[in-house]
């Protein structure tokens, strides 16, 4: 357990122990709230877009309070790109799968032939899959937007 003065002496200009500790405590709750908004999107306010923005904002807060390198250790650029593309793939994949099983594009009730949940059950569950895909894609885009703008496109120092 180091003294507070020793810990703050190594901090660079603009870094504050209070802000870092507050962000460290707040970020898990922000992410939990983002997941809540995504999961409850189909019957309450919110949804994939808003939940994705909240999830992305948690990483933006980490990059603001600490270094950009610290937030890139937690979620690297490669993982970020994979998550964003996976979100878009979930969205389009579900839609095309509906069309392949005899329905229209994004007509979830056609997926009843794949797993029998009933057409009404699939209409409720299909929008959940779509929300998860949208949330992943939006989170990735928000985080990479901030990384690119904050570090002038060089991905090293950041703000």
């Amino acid at each position: 357990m180091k003294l507070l003065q020793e810990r703050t002496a190594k901090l660079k200009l603009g870094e504050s122990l209070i802000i870092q500790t507050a962000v460290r405590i707040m970020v898990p709750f922000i992410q939990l709230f983002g997941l809540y908004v995504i999961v409850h999107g189909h019957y309450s306010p919110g949804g994939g877009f808003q939940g994705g923005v909240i999830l992305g904002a948690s990483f933006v807060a980490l990059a603001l309070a600490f270094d950009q390198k610290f937030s890139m250790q937690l979620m690297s650029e490669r993982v970020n790109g994979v998550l964003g593309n996976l979100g878009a793939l979930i969205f389009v994949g579900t839609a095309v799968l509906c069309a392949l099983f005899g329905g229209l594009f994004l007509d979830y009730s056609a997926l009843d032939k794949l797993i029998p949940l009933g057409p009404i059950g699939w209409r409720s569950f299909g929008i959940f899959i779509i929300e998860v895909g949208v949330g992943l894609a939006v989170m990735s885009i928000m985080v990479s937007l901030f990384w690119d703008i904050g570090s002038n496109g060089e991905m090293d120092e950041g703000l």
Partner: protein
Amino acid sequence: MIWLIDELTLLLVVICALAAITVKDLLSATVIFGVYSFLMCLLWAEMGAVDVAFTEATVGAGVSTVLFIAAILHTSRRSKD
């Protein structure tokens, strides 16, 4: 009583919008724009569009303010040419 709050919020929205385009400093314009977004969020919520209010609070006031400030920190006060 609700129309009083409604009109007060509308007045503040107009004042914030005028202030955001007339103020000279880019950073203060961004902060005023964030205030404008939150007031618009209040208006949406008051009109019953909770989903739009949610989007306005997260995107308009949260992320776009941070992105604007990140872009402003790479600018200089005087142009180089």
